[in-house]
């Protein structure tokens, strides 16, 4: 699993392509049509939820679709005022859990990734391999024992317990990603730092981490999303009390056995999606470089 430093260098695609000859008008149109179509498919479900979120529940299930149908902000006010369950508490729990997971996962995977990238030490290969294996563990086999362990540690039903569980999912992948990213930072920088009298940790903390910001951003994005959208462990481990739920668990109150309150669900969904999309927007310009030179290079 090695990455050559040269791979980070993004090839100036523009120049290369122009040299190969301009594409014809027809090809250009076809290219744009395809991309517009794909973008529409990518965006439409989100757009449709947004449209639905303004409709009353009864209007959301009519058989002729309309963009506006008695639309108002009622759903949002009702969701936020906690009429359907303590939305704000769920939101707070999710924010807390997601942020803690992000911070811990990024920190753990940065140190481990740096060690794996810079040092040769016995057991490094098996460590990286075991990270890959951890991805394969189905939660079905872990869920009962994990429950027991959290119970023993006194963390059952607490946010910290859930944060730790999410870290086990996020850290291995993040470590891969960051190891790949650190590989692209020339080791000369480390040596220069050592010559100037920094400790190994100083080099890591003061020189390498700041340079690895794109990789860290992508890692943070991944860890945040892992925690923000997880359903299975959250519904199994958090206590049934309404105020301790996360959003993913709480939102299921809108989906009853026979009837789903689509308008309210849509409004709540939009409120949940906003932070995730905000985080996404902040890191998206790093995504391609961060990811490509990271995990994915293997």
């Amino acid at each position: 699993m090695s990455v050559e430093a040269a791979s980070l260098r993004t090839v100036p695609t523009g120049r290369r392509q122009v040299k190969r000859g301009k594409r014809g008008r027809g090809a250009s149109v076809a290219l744009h049509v395809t991309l517009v179509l794909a973008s529409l498919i990518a965006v439409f479900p989100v757009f449709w939820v947004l449209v639905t979120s303004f409709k009353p529940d009864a209007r959301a299930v009519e058989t002729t679709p309309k963009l506006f149908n008695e639309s108002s902000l009622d759903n949002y006010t009702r969701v936020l005022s906690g009429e359907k369950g303590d939305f704000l508490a769920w939101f707070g729990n999710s924010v807390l859990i997601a942020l803690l997971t992000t911070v811990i996962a990024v920190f753990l995977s940065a140190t481990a990734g740096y060690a794996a990238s810079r040092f040769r030490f016995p057991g490094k290969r098996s460590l990286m391999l075991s990270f890959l294996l951890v991805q394969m563990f189905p939660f079905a086999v872990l869920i009962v024992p994990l429950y027991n362990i959290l119970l023993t540690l006194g963390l059952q039903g607490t946010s910290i317990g859930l944060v730790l569980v999410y870290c086990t999912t996020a850290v291995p992948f993040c470590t891969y990603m960051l190891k790949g990213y650190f590989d692209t930072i020339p080791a000369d920088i480390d040596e220069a730092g050592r010559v100037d009298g920094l400790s190994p940790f100083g080099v890591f903390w003061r020189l390498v981490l700041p340079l690895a910001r794109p990789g860290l951003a992508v890692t943070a994005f991944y860890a945040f999303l892992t925690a923000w959208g997880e359903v299975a462990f959250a519904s199994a481990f958090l206590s049934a009390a309404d105020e301790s739920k996360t959003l993913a668990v709480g939102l299921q109150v809108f989906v009853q056995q026979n009837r789903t309150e689509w308008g309210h669900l849509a409004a709540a969904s939009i409120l949940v999606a906003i932070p995730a999309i905000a985080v996404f927007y902040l890191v998206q310009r790093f995504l391609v470089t961060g990811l490509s030179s990271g995990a994915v290079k293997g």
Partner: protein
Amino acid sequence: MRRFLDRHWYAYAMVLPVVVVIAVLVLYPLAQGVFFTFTNINEANIANPILDRPATYISVGLRNYLNVLSGDPSYGSFWSTLARTLIWTSACVLLHYGIGLGLAMLLNRPLRGRSAYRVLLILPWAVPAFISAFAWKYMFNAQYGIINQALRAVGLPDPVWLGQSDWALVAVIIVNVWLGVPFMMVSLLGGLQSIPGDLYEAAEVDGATPWQRFRHVTLPGLRAVSSTVVLLGIIWTFNMFAVIYLVAGQNPNTRILVTYAFERFFSGASRDYAVASTYGVLILSVLLVFASVYRRALRRQGEVW
């Protein structure tokens, strides 16, 4: 020993936190989970510190495995569920990869509005999966869902997507493809950008057609990226629980190994932990076998991985 520690102590210090967390929260639970598969543990006989009740489950030897592997419907029809899991996984990963590669190649050209397209196309990744699942469930509704309304409008048949038929499987595959393409696209785009442009120029000078350039420059250039993302994609899809569970619920037509384990874990008063764990161990074994075959195949092609 001293020299050894002197040389490596900071490497180990940096790795230690991760190793501890993983060992406590993954390896130990795994060992315990494997142990549970040889017992009849369930909600009624597990130790319960709140009720101050000791564990009363007993060892049943290999009976769980025999029951599950017999393919008995009351134990989830293992073999047909496995077949469905394989269909689900291969359909999803093939479409993820194919569409992702296609879009990545389009985005790797110079064109106006490229970064806008990129943001829009990655959007499905940024939306939490359970939100997307609800959105698609709403759109797939047989009567008022927008998909069927559109199909009716152009005169096509409008199936009951999430009913008791294989349409439900098609529906969840569509949702999962929608969710998974952005990751593949971004990864492959990164891979494409790291292929040196000189190679394409050289190929062109030698008179290679676009197809030959794709076949002999692009694909080999993407080998390292592809082999990793495909393996990860297969593992993730094989264990994908949220999409199926939230879109289709407990529908036998969309049941894959993971969702059945979850049903077993959660459904009813009995909460059969033993069978759920047995399924977990079987899933893990299938993936392990697959990963080692995959790795060997890569190595035979000269990949050091």
